[in-house]
């Protein structure tokens, strides 16, 4: 395999793994957060406004870790710096 194929294979496989594994943790975390928020909502319906607001902020912060993984995999697939470097070298020669 030449270096171009190697870079393509490595980028695509890594991008898939990044999003796949990177979504596992936040999914578990969000599930825990929502279930805890639901049980505390059932116990204290009066505090629903505070709980919902905190839940939304917390969920977005948990979700941002998954978003980071998504951004990294998107960069690997669509804006890969190594790939661009190799293409620039190939067209330059």
């Amino acid at each position, binding site marked *: 395999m030449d270096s171009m194929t190697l870079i393509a294979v490595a980028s695509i496989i890594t991008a898939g793994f990044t999003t796949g594994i990177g979504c596992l943790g936040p999914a578990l975390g969000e599930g825990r957060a929502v279930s805890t928020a639901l049980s505390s909502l059932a116990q204290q319906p009066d505090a629903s406004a505070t709980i919902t*607001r905190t839940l*939304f902020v917390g969920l977005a912060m948990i979700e*941002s870790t998954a978003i980071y993984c998504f*951004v990294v995999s998107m960069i690997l697939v*669509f804006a890969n710096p190594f790939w661009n470097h190799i293409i620039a070298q190939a067209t330059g020669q």
Partner: protein
Amino acid sequence: MRLSPDEIIFWQFGFVKLNATIVFTWGLMFVMAVGSKLITDKISTGHTRSRWQNLLEIVVTLTEKQIEEVGILHPKKYLPFLGTLFLFVALAALCTVFPGFEPPTGSLSTTTALALCVFVAVPLFGIMERGWSSYLKSYVQPTFIMLPFNIISEFSRTLALAVRLFGNMMSGAMIIGILLTITPFIFPIVMKALGLLTGMVQAYIFFVLATVYIAAATRVRKPDPEAEHIES
């Protein structure tokens, strides 16, 4: 496939480029500034008022209430800055229903600029509220060992603010683009609705996080016992 609206260039003259991010940012600024000016020109304090004035009043009072609920005692002082952040991000997300519109918040340069505004505003408000010595002392709380971590957290949360907003707005457009090639019929509409919801939630998150940071920076060491009682 495009990663950001930076790559659509409308007009170029040497070094100066006019890309979609700048054009749509100017468009949003124009709509918001001229819209507010037109509405507030015919402002009335009587019983009858225009529906547009009602809309603005709802937005302003709701934002003020939200800022107060986070724990800032004088929300009027921070309303212009925080309200502008919220309205800009929310309108950018909302305008994606128009075909051809690219949200300027889907570009990392816009979100970095917004996050840098928060990065500068937090110490500024903190120093204005508490004075130099009291604010700088908050960096060595609880012990002196925490100083580097406090400084790192200032930078890392700015980075997180920028990348979170960018990632969410970019992923919405990207997912629709990918789905159009797989299931071009009804399913992209569902994702579009989800994208609208995510955009509004992200606008709220950005606003609340900025408010929380400012509230933490401006908080005086000893809160009055009455406020503490309500919180507990």
